[in-house]
């Protein structure tokens, strides 16, 4: 065979192989007449699948909130604490270090989430010295220090003065005492107003909750009248407790609840509130659904009851979140912490705390996960959490499994029994 013929043949074979080396099987124009018409039988079943439901209070842990909630309205009083445990006592002028003997223009800067704050001017921010030798977690001791003789500054703002950043002057004498004597500055924040007011000041943990936020409060003071000497900025810092770095860090800034709307009754399921509450619901899904069917939809029906403990209704976004803890975790409170992020796999639900009625939450992705990952022995549980958890006074209340049958949690599952569809 001559080379020319061989080249021609080789080229043809290569061309055929190139265009046909990969299958492209997809067609659809013959449908439905010529397409496989699998009959999809959908069955709807409503089951009392919730075997355990309970509220778990105290979320998020103290000091990990995205906001320092400063509130003053009927039935609600929350105040903040920010620690500045290290205050510089020296400044540099002309290359020479000197001890600070004066602190002019002392103030604290607070960064406000105005979009999520509710106020009508005027509002007054009052600062207190809340440093104490009491235990770090002794909130009653802290609360006791919000009194007149501990007052170290204040400012009143009219509407035009309320900006994203609030500057509150600090009294010089107590600050200078702390600077000179190496004492800690722990500032208590209280807001008051003739009108209901709720201010949300970004905490140091805000960035962990709110993408793009990297702000924190700041204290500043000017150690010398020479304008060449710049004011000294001081950021929040906590140096106690010594034996718990996590708690020490969390307590850099936090807020304390002086008064909050009462939680729902013990046999209710509550979501939100102060301190934040989550509802934990554990399910038992029949194996003929979970193991032998294709689950198409799962809707959790909860009956909301109006929350009448607050005169001001709050709008709350409720997030269903899948528990990722295994069955080996028997502590419900711990299980309610081991959950998927908000918005992961589930749609949220926006509710007013004062409303009532049947609410439906789509949780098909939870059942699919329980069906697919049987070997992981994950708890078949869902936790309901609130948006702005721990920083929103409102609370949504649902009837629990202890309520009358008509208002108990129920689960409607739409599923399709598996068939041997592969045999034509």
């Amino acid at each position, binding site marked *: *065979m001559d080379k020319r*013929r*061989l080249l021609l*043949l080789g080229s043809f*074979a290569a061309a*055929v*192989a190139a*265009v*046909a*080396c*990969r*299958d*492209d*099987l*997809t*067609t*659809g*124009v*013959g*449908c*439905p*007449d*010529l*397409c*496989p*018409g*699998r*009959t*999809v*039988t*959908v*069955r*709807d*079943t*409503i*089951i*009392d699948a919730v*075997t355990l439901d309970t509220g778990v209070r105290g979320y998020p842990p103290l000091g990990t909130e995205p906001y320092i909630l400063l509130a003053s309205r009927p039935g609600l009083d929350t105040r903040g604490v920010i620690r500045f445990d290290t205050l510089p006592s020296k400044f540099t002028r002309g290359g020479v270090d000197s001890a600070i003997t004066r602190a002019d223009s002392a103030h604290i800067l607070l960064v406000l989430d105005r979009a999520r704050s509710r106020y009508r001017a005027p509002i007054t921010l009052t600062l207190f010295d809340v440093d104490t030798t009491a235990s770090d977690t002794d909130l009653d001791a802290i609360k006791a220090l919000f009194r007149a003789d501990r007052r170290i500054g204040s400012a009143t703002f009219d509407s035009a003065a309320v900006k994203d950043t609030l500057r509150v002057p600090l009294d010089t004498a107590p600050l200078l005492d702390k600077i000179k004597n190496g004492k800690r500055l722990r500032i208590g924040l209280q807001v008051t107003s003739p009108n209901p007011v709720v201010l949300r000041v970004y905490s140091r943990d805000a960035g962990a909750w709110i993408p793009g936020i990297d702000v924190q409060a700041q204290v500043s003071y000017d150690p010398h009248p020479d304008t060449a000497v710049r004011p000294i900025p001081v950021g929040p810092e906590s140096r106690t407790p010594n034996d718990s770095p996590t708690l020490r860090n969390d307590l850099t800034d936090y807020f304390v609840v002086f008064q909050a709307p009462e939680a729902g009754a013990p046999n209710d399921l509550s979501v939100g509130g102060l301190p934040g509450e989550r509802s934990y619901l554990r399910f*038992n899904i029949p194996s003929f659904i979970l193991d032998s069917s*294709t689950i*198409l*939809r*799962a*809707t959790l029906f909860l009956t909301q009851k109006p929350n009448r403990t607050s005169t001001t209704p709050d709008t709350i976004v409720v997030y269903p979140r899948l528990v990722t803890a295994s069955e080996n975790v028997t502590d419900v409170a711990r299980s309610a912490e081991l959950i998927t992020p908000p918005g992961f*796999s*589930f*749609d949220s639900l926006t509710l007013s705390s004062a409303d009532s009625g049947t609410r439906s939450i*789509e949780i*098909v*992705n939870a*059942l*699919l996960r329980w069906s697919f990952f049987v070997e992981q022995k994950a708890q078949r549980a869902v936790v309901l959490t609130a948006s702005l958890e721990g920083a929103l006074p409102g609370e949504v209340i649902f009837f629990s499994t202890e309520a009358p049958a008509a208002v108990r949690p129920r689960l*409607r599952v*739409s599923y*399709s029994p598996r068939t*041997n*569809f*592969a*045999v*034509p």
Partner: protein
Amino acid sequence: MTIHLRSAFVLFVLGASPLAAQGSLSQQGFGYPAGVVSARAMGGGGAFQEFDPRSARNPASIGAWGQPALYMQYEPEFRRVSSAGEADQTRLTRFPLLSGSVPVGSRMALGASASTFLDRSWETLRRGTQQIGPDSVDFVERYHTNGAVNDLRVSVARQLAERFWVGVAGHAFVGGNRVRLTRTFSDSQTFGGLDDTLKLGYVGSAFSAGAIWTPVASISLAASGRLGRQLRVTSNDTILGRADIPNSYSFAIRFDGIPGASFAARAERTLWSSLSTLGSASATAVDAWDYSIGLEATATPGRAAPILYRAGYRDRGLPFLANGQAIKERSVTAGATLPLSGERAGIDLAVWRSVRRGAPSTDESAWVISLGLTVRP
């Protein structure tokens, strides 16, 4: 736990037709009979396959090798399915035939082959609406299957007289389909999709026998038949269906009276209906004829390894009904054999155009290119 079975009802059967099918006319039921015939034989419409040792048809034909030989075939198909003014193009790659033979003495040969018996490789994509709970939701469904039932054959041929060969063969039919159905809903937070995968396995057997007789120098006659035994389809060790491998019988005549040219005609009857019990009523198989005529000629007669050209025509019925209608496939074929290194190797090329018709609303056509490589070590 208390269960309130509020309702259990069939909400949805897609499409107007209750029949199941596979988006094309040729891929109905358990698939398309793709293999057995070599590229060399298909160049002549398949009419020469009874005499062709490369084709896995007549076990008597393997005596024609005369020496050890190995043959393999590559066969892409470019298909067009049109319906209601719309058309889809698909592309499918097959390796439908592998065969070989060794002579045992001067009057006997042993052969083995693997060929595609029923190819079930297709995918359909469609959109629809389904009622789930109180809501109606749009979905996209993808139905994909891949795999085939293959025919593994071991054959022996014996020359009983100078111009008379007979052969027998045992067949094992094995293979499988991997079938996946996915149905994705437009709102994935609210609705879980369907995603099922099943593997089907096939096991069956058959025997075949054939003969080739050349009563005069210019005429050869051939006949072969297959006696099918049970075929089972299983999934996870569960038998889902039983049927018999279809019996078949075929006859062919070849005329070599013109120097440098050969003519052949062939007819085959396959009793495909024996497969009807393998699946549901939507996979109904019907008995079918397969007719073909072909011409083989050389432009260089007298050479030891001449270039051969072929042309042919084939008319056959496909095994499975489409929407209740029998499907006919008509093919116009052409091909050539290009020898490499004398008689030690050769490449067979065949190209054919097939038109498949039967269902009132759908037409199907295909270009098929078949490349075969023969090696005689």
